[in-house]
């Protein structure tokens, strides 16, 4: 019987898992990371086994990625987020996507990965020591505007004139937004402005020398339709969104896990 393979993505905010069989995603789960990464990872494995009626021995290999990748005891090995995301795209990208650029917006970092035509990583850039251009940025602004992160996308699409948010620093942007609120600016316009400011910030990270291929968004941030629209407007290009964007890293890790068992990839 074909084995199952599990990818665990221990991010800063959530721990994501993807279960795969025959290189297809069987199921995904997400738990808040909390303070006990290891305990949460064990719970996830147990929950997945129960949900799909399999035992732990049916899982051939577990690959961990994300911030806590090195401390998850249930995992057989670990791989960096960059490689995991690049692999995930092989499964999660829409059919018409020609490999080129991957924009990943996570809870506490954002990264850009450049792929060659065969989905191999050519290069990558990551944000430095700062939460600007990450999920945290959206979360902080959403809180001030008395909404939640899953609503900000839809709300911002209703905006008719987005306002400017000039601060890149999360803390400074926060006070800027508070003063906009005080001036009774429509919160939908503020949110549209926030998305544009994030997109601009991430576009600045891009390498001018890397051209060719399409753009794909992954990570929890890609669930936000507002930021998706902002990228298209700023780059004047179609931007694709991955299937299960939040689980892209976990899917990639699971895919590597399955290949690891086929001995094709010995890192």
């Amino acid at each position, binding site marked *: 019987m074909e084995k199952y393979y599990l990818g665990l993505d221990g991010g800063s905010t959530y721990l994501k898992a993807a279960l795969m069989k025959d290189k297809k995603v069987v199921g995904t789960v997400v738990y808040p990371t909390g303070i006990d990464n290891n305990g949460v990872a064990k719970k996830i494995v147990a929950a997945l086994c129960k949900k799909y009626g399999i035992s732990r021995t049916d899982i051939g290999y577990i690959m961990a990625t994300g911030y806590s990748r090195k401390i998850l005891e249930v995992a057989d090995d670990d*791989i*960096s*987020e*960059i*490689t995991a995301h690049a692999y995930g795209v092989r499964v999660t990208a829409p059919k018409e996507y020609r490999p080129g650029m991957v924009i990943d917006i996570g809870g506490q970092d954002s990264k850009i990965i450049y792929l060659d035509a*065969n989905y*191999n*990583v*050519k*290069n*990558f850039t*990551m944000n*430095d*020591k700062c939460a600007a251009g990450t999920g945290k940025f959206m979360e902080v602004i959403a809180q001030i505007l008395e909404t939640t992160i899953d609503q900000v996308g839809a709300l911002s699409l209703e905006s008719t004139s987005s306002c400017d948010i000039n601060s890149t620093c999360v803390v400074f942007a926060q006070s800027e937004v508070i003063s906009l609120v005080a001036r009774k600016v429509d919160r939908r316009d503020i949110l549209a402005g926030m998305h544009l400011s994030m997109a601009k910030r991430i576009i600045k990270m891009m390498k001018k*020398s890397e051209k060719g291929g399409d753009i794909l968004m992954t990570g929890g941030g890609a669930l936000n339709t507002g930021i998706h629209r902002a990228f298209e407007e700023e780059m004047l290009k179609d931007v694709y969104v991955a299937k299960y964007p939040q689980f892209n890293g976990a899917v990639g890790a699971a895919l590597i896990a399955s290949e690891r068992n086929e001995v*094709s*990839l*010995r*890192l």
Partner: protein
Amino acid sequence: MADQSGINERQRELFIRKSTRVAAAYLKRAKELAELPDAAKPFFDVLENTYVNNVKEITGLEYTSPSDFTRCGAELLRMADIQKPEERKSIGTLCVMVPAELVYAAGAMPVRLCSGSYTAYSIGDDYIPRDACPLVKAVMGFGKIKALPAFDNCSLLVAPVTCDCKKKLAGTIDSVKDTIPLHIPPLKKDDADTEIFLKELYRLIPLLENVTGKQVTAKSLAEGINMVGNAQYEMSEFLKYRRHDLSLMSGTQVMAVMNAYSYMPANIWAEQMHRLNEEMKLRLSQGRFVSRKNQPRILVTGSPIAFPNIKVPLLIEEMGGVLAADETCMGERGLYDPVSVIDASFDGMMRSLASRYTKPCTCPVFVDNSQRIYRIKQMIKEHKIQGVIYHVLRGCLVYDYEYQLMEEAMGKMDIPIIRVESDYNEEDVEQLRIRIEAFIELIKMRTSA
């Protein structure tokens, strides 16, 4: 009681406790990477003496003798004494443009004071603008705190006017140490540029003679050139072993050996290097390697990597890469190219020095520095490099400037390259780790595809 610089005794004591602990911890990590060759241990002892033991001894703290003195222990003890001013005068230098040959010819010992101390950096931070590079902050920090005998014992500091940070350092560190700024021509192509530097070297002679009371003669200059040349010869021999497909010694340990050159007389360094070469020969014949076949071979270049700031080399090797070569000024740059004397007259030798310390120098402060790309391309071939990690210290504009050119050149050679930015602290280690780890995976994927 506060002295003029506003640093009191208690602050100094705490500084020493912290800086010696950090230095000792990095030495330990480097030693643990792979089996340290016996002949490399004395180099580690020198770093330990410089950054830990001498500091404790001179400042009256508990003194522990170096852990593993080996064959040349006696010589080393003698050498360690050289850092004490009554034995021999030492002259502090910065960058790679102060001819060590000339300092030896004047009867003094050159000591490279470019430092990677995180603790000294945090002291220097109070005296130097925020956006300046951490290296000059560390140097200024040691100048102010007076807790590094190797620094304090220098009778004079010769500070080449290279990048903007070093230029302003040369102008401000004068308050804590007698400093001679050494003018470096920003251009180096024409003979006229070398002439400018030659004049500077002639200006330096009486200033050095004043310190030592000895004259620079044709004989002493030839001896100096010979002495440094021997060290460079041993280095070139060592590079033959370093080029081997499977590594005979950890690259981080090699960088420590080259760093130790800053604090050792060239002849003793060369003698010990000879022993290390013998040991490399033995390891090669016995097939004792420290790397495996599928480990990516990486070259590090960019801003200086000075002890104890060796986090980038350590991370490369801890994440499964092989640090196969470095093109940095604390590493191979100062050591690979000997002075070639064509005209053996005094002026001829001086001209050879002026030419050697400018023309082939690959420091990015020069307007046209195409030599650096040429040199790196050459090293990629010689050392069978599969990827380049470009190290940029925060505020180090000249190296950052050359990154684009380097990226273009590497693109043409199909060699992956990443830029990692870092500072003198340990807070960015995880950010560096993920980048370096992903880069190593990227190379492995390419080679397995």
